[in-house]
């Protein structure tokens, strides 16, 4: 091997190490756009692997029957008895499984892949079959994400030793010399004999701890990688440089994704430039948090989101949003029912066979049932799918200077209360904050309320109020959510006093006009909305914005519970 330097040399070495111990290292996450560099790396990995090794590609949105294994429809019908078919995980046993667009992988699929990586086998209990097959493989997750939050599921990343970012490597660099297949074969033979002293193990653990890596898988993966590196170099024991390579390739990339530092109080933003109202003396931040949480609690009637969702005021088809929809061909399978094969309904083969089975003798006119199955129309069972149209609640939080420190805290309190409601219904939540020149997506739609709460707590305040830009961002996100088959629901917390226009320039008049225009666009897109007015006194600005949104208006006045409940009763 020619020891080189630079990112491509590292990437090439990583490919060789993965080829030496594919199942032990779990695989690699490859962050790179599709292109010549990625192709070069994949071609290199493939050339380094022994020739007979399976090399499979996992399409996005794969069905369980293909992933885990299931019933072979054609063979089953031919044979008249259930015939099993191996899934792609079993097919890839001993080799490499490529994961296209891994950043869009469903958590459910990721969990199934993680289980296979952990146990080295694939187990399926489905379609009347119990299947178990070895699946010792390496996953290569092709991550085409661009924004930092677009990444493959963390459960999967935790189990892949290598994380490579190829996006900065120029295509010309890939012509540099790389390790050869012969070296890899020699190293594979050497690998079981490689010794690693206790000092190596301790050093890797200590490094992982110092980098803030919480999981215990990375140090273990680093140890395996150090062994593979020693084998590649022809050593019988792990040397310092092997351990250093392991730390660089396995631990280093994870440090950047270390858990955030202990939550700190957000630094108080500069005093709002435009507050004309006299403020009462400020209590300490902790006390303030409690007081305001209590105030917010009074302002948010229980079940507010429920009421909003079911509100028939919209031109929407009533009763479909956010509810479970039975669909003949989309969603999760939830059993079968008698029916006819029309309108795209899909046959539930096993259930149909089960329904037909008791009648075979009878249908064969009392004789022994022959090889041919006699299936009558009433035997036909079709699959039932349940499309749970999930609701994703988008919180759009005004963090501008006009929402002064305590107003922001109050808004945070209100969001926390609404989050609790989302938790009970298992909604997804997303968090967009806007201040200064524009809006920022703090949290893409997620089920993890723990994460939502963390990003909310870390939200600083200050700056202008770019409502138009914020609503544009919300519309784009809501659109993406709808395209995924989920129902968006917008909760806007603001005082409604826009003062930054779309182009980032200050000016209240134009900013307001644009905000109303953006709000009308949301209304036209039929996104249900709720505006929580965080200004000290309910103001015309918030009310007119809510009207433009076609949404409900709820003022969150300064600890005046009577006024709130009145407003809610009227609203």
């Amino acid at each position, binding site marked *: 091997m020619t020891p080189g330097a630079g990112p491509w040399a590292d990437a090439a070495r990583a490919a060789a190490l993965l080829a030496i111990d594919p199942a032990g290292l779990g695989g690699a996450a490859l962050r790179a756009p599709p292109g010549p560099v990625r192709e070069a790396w994949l071609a290199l990995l493939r050339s380094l692997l022994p020739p007979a090794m399976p090399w499979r590609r996992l399409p996005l949105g794969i069905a369980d029957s293909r992933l*885990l294994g299931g019933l072979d429809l054609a063979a089953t019908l031919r044979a008249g008895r259930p015939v099993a078919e191996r899934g792609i995980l079993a097919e890839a046993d001993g080799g490499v499984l490529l994961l296209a667009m891994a950043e869009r992988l469903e958590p459910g699929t990721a969990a199934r892949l993680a289980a296979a990586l952990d146990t080295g086998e694939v187990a399926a*209990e489905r379609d009347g079959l119990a299947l178990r097959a070895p699946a010792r493989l390496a996953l290569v997750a092709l991550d085409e994400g661009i924004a930092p939050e677009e990444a493959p599921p*963390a459960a999967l990343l935790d189990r892949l030793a290598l994380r490579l970012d190829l996006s900065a490597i120029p295509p010309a660099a890939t012509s540099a010399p790389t390790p050869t297949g012969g070296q890899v074969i020699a190293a594979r033979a050497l690998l079981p004999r490689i010794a690693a002293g206790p000092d190596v*193990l301790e050093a890797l653990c200590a490094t992982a701890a110092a980098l803030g890596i919480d999981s*215990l898988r990375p140090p273990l993966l680093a140890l395996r990688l150090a062994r593979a590196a020693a084998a590649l170099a022809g050593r019988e024991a792990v040397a310092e440089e092997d351990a250093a390579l392991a730390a660089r390739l396995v631990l280093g990339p994870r440090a950047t994704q270390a858990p955030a530092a202990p939550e700190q109080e957000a630094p108080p933003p500069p005093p709002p430039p435009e507050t004309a109202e006299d403020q009462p003396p400020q209590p300490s931040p902790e006390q303030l948090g409690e007081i305001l949480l209590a105030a917010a609690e009074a302002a948010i009637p229980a079940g507010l989101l429920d009421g909003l969702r079911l509100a028939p005021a919209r031109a929407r088809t009533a009763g479909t949003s956010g509810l479970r929809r039975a669909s003949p061909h989309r969603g999760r399978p939830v059993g079968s029912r008698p029916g006819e094969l029309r309108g795209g309904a899909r046959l539930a083969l096993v259930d149909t066979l089960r329904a037909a*089975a008791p009648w075979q003798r009878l249908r064969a006119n009392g004789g022994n049932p022959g090889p041919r199955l006699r299936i009558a129309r009433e035997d036909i069972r079709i699959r039932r799918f349940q499309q749970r149209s999930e609701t994703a609640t988008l919180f759009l939080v005004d963090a501008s200077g006009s929402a002064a420190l305590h107003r922001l805290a109050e808004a945070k309190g209100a969001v926390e209360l609404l989050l609790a409601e989302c938790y*009970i219904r298992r909604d997804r939540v997303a968090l967009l904050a806007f201040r200064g020149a524009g809006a920022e997506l703090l949290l893409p739609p997620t089920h993890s309320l*723990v994460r939502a709460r963390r990003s909310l707590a870390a939200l600083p305040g200050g700056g202008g109020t770019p409502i138009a830009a914020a609503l544009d961002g919300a519309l784009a996100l809501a659109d993406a959510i709808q395209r995924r088959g989920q129902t968006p629901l917008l909760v806007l917390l603001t005082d409604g006093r826009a003062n930054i226009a779309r182009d980032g320039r200050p000016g209240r008049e134009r900013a307001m006009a644009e905000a109303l225009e953006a709000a009308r666009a949301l209304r036209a897109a039929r996104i249900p909305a709720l505006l929580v007015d965080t200004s000290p006194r309910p103001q015309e600005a918030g009310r007119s914005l809510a009207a433009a949104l076609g949404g409900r208006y709820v003022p969150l006045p300064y600890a005046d519970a009577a006024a709130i409940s009145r407003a809610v009763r009227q609203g």
Partner: protein
Amino acid sequence: MTGRRAFPFSAIVGQEEMKLAILIAAIDPGIGGVLVFGDRGTGKSTAIRALAALLPEIPVIEGCPYRCDPADEAALCAECRTRRPLRTAMAPVPVVDLPLGATEDRVLGALDIQRALAEGVKSFEPGLLARAHRGFLYIDEVNLLEDHLVDLLLDVAASGENVVEREGLSIRHPARFVLVGSGNPEEGELRPQLLDRFGLSVEVATPKDLPSRIEVIRRRDAFERDPAGFTAHWSGAEAELRNRILAARTRLPDIALPDAALERAARLCLALGTDGLRGELTLIRAARALAALEGEAAVDDAALRRVAPPALRHRLRRNPLDEAVSTTRVERAMAEVFAP
């Protein structure tokens, strides 16, 4: 796990609360299931998969698909009631994995199509619930399992019987098992309605101190390099633990429950405002199993204190956004109730 050696239970570093909860369930399967929630890479699955090798073999009726207990006549399945002669054999305690993507027919059991088609016989093909009878049913990533399947499992686990009414079959068979669920809260929370249906709930975290972390990796690496040697090295500790479980099971019916302990438990639950009696019953039951494990004659404050967090923390009315608050609340209430 077929053919693969499992990491020995006694070799797991730390995670005392998780190990204790699992042992309590092994001593008293009536505890109502164990939920293990926590960080990635903390050995949740390892601990549960280690159980099969740890637990002592159980006597079963030979040829019975449900492995009926010859000593418990009332719980025999329909076939064993008429089966003569009853021969007894020894079998390992089942620890059954419920893989994600499992379908209802395989979980509950269904008509055996192959026999129905080939022989025209209407026979029942037992599912995972039958396989888990008298053992453990493990669901990794329980928060990703279909809600209707979780409901179904909890129902069967609570009633101890699986009733199948489908495809002209009408079957009921005993299905008493300990449901063990594990998951990571970052992948999405478990429905709150399901939480308090588990008997014990354990929170696991990766060890923070370096020596423990090093020891975890050292043992894991040693196991992977030489599974047979590692297992042999730990076989003494495993046998010792196995004997403790057996002894605890024998002692369990004789553990005394003083009125003072009952009162403490009641006051603790009252102070925490747990709903219903399930919390109190689980607390007492778990304390009893712990006393049996420790070789004590009666339930005392020390036992109650150790099992109170796993028995109660998931039964508090809580703000779902508070991460560690439940445990703190249990501890605070304990400090109050157990004050001298």
